[in-house]
């Protein structure tokens, strides 16, 4: 029996939907609904999280993200310029730094900066354990963003630099007024991606332990997990992360669309 091409396609699509519904049905039917509602949707626990989950935890997550991002981008700029320097020593130093910190898990760097450095050097980063952790996030995100920025700087057409130089603008003003503004525009979408990664990486700070007014979302969830003896705080925290990161990734998509338009 021969079927028409369109009929075949309709059958195939229909089968896919049926399979998906079957999977959902199995999950719903086999789930222990009573246990779920007790462990994740305990109303009293949810109520007890309010308003600290927003006013303290979410606020601190955003604050730590902004600090790490701002510090990271400054560090990245220095590293990117060093990588593009005519001086070989600078290039080597920057390359070594970037490879080193991209090769380490962020959590290892956080532990090292919060606990290792005070032990080894007797120097405590400002802000205590959290300060050390933030410094670590700056160091790691700086390494990643340095490569992004370098690519952006190199994507600015050579003629732009030549035009600025031919007007007598030295290296500094050429970079500041002509190259960097164009490079930043090019790297806004990938940098926003880095930003979203940082939102989630601040959860690693939970490892160093913090006082109640310092908690970010993950450590807030952890602490409440212990006191409430059910998992509702984790679900709540997960939702707040999504509330922060999904609009940010929508922003990336918007910026990318806009950039494609501008690029002609």
């Amino acid at each position: 029996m021969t079927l028409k091409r369109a009929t075949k396609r309709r059958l195939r699509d229909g089968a896919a939907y049926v399979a998906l519904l079957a999977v959902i049905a199995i999950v719903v039917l086999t789930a222990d609904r009573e246990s779920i509602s007790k462990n994740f949707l305990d109303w009293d626990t949810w109520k007890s999280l309010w308003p600290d989950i927003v006013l303290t935890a979410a606020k601190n997550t955003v604050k730590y993200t902004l600090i790490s991002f701002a510090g990271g981008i400054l560090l990245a700029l220095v590293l990117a310029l060093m990588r593009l320097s005519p001086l070989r020593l600078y290039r080597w130093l920057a390359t070594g730094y970037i490879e080193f910190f991209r090769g380490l898990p962020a959590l290892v760097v956080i532990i090292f900066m919060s606990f290792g450095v005070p032990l080894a050097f007797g120097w405590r980063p400002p802000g205590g354990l959290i300060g050390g952790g933030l410094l670590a996030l700056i160091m790691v995100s700086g390494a990643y963003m340095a490569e992004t920025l370098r690519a952006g700087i190199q994507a600015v057409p050579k003629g732009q630099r030549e035009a600025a130089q031919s007007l007598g603008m030295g290296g500094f003003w050429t970079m500041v007024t002509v190259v960097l503004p164009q490079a930043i525009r090019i790297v806004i979408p990938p940098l926003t991606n880095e930003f979203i990664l940082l939102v989630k990486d601040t959860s690693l700070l939970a490892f160093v332990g913090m006082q109640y007014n310092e908690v970010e979302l993950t450590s807030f969830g952890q602490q409440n997990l212990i006191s409430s003896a059910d998992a509702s705080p984790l679900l709540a925290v997960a939702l707040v992360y999504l509330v922060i990161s999904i609009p940010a990734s929508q922003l990336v998509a918007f910026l990318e669309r806009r950039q494609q338009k501008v690029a002609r």
Partner: protein
Amino acid sequence: MSTSQMTTPAIQVSDLHKYFGENEVLKGIDFHVDQSQVVCVIGPSGSGKSTLLRCVNRLEEPTSGKILVEGIDITDPETDLDAVRARIGMVFQQFNLFPHMSVLKNLCVAQQRVKKRSKDEAVEIARRNLAKVGLADRENSYPAQLSGGQQQRVAIARALSMNPDMMLFDEPTSALDPELVGDVLAVMRDLASEGMTMMVVTHEMGFAREVGDKLVFMDGGVIVEEGDPRQVLGDPQHHRTQAFLSKVL
């Protein structure tokens, strides 16, 4: 006419060699541009004419030889290159306007940063030069909103706003649609009639003939023939010049 201004050539190039890796693109160039002279450089692509022009403000690093700009040796590492460049206007084939700045800002940024002019002064000079190239009404436009011919005229106005002593043109009309070439050439003709010293790498033989004081024909990294444009174009002496002109005229 015995001032030192008239005796020092604007540009004096002697025994200039330039290698790109193993490839020798300039094989010993001797050449000069006098004050207020318009010198056009022609030749097939790959002849080294753009490289020669770009060596004059050291966008290309000469491998050996001497380049004097108004008597100042620009190959000397002690020379303040930015100060020399500020006195040499340069116009590129691809315009190279700054796309993130308005037309007015394009004309002002170097005036303020390099010449240390006040904003008001820079704007006044910029407006005067925009009027000169016929684009006084476009100061708030962005480069992407302008046609190629308009962009190139803005680029000329940008270079003029630095009050340069001379202008270098690197195939200024080669990237333009044919109907836009005339406006740019007209601006260049006006400049020449005002006595601007100009070195122009071009394929516009008509412009070279009418406006040029001297024509230089380059091929294979050497100057094959140079002289009065009407003479060189009308009665070329060297067989390579003849071969080239028979193809383009």
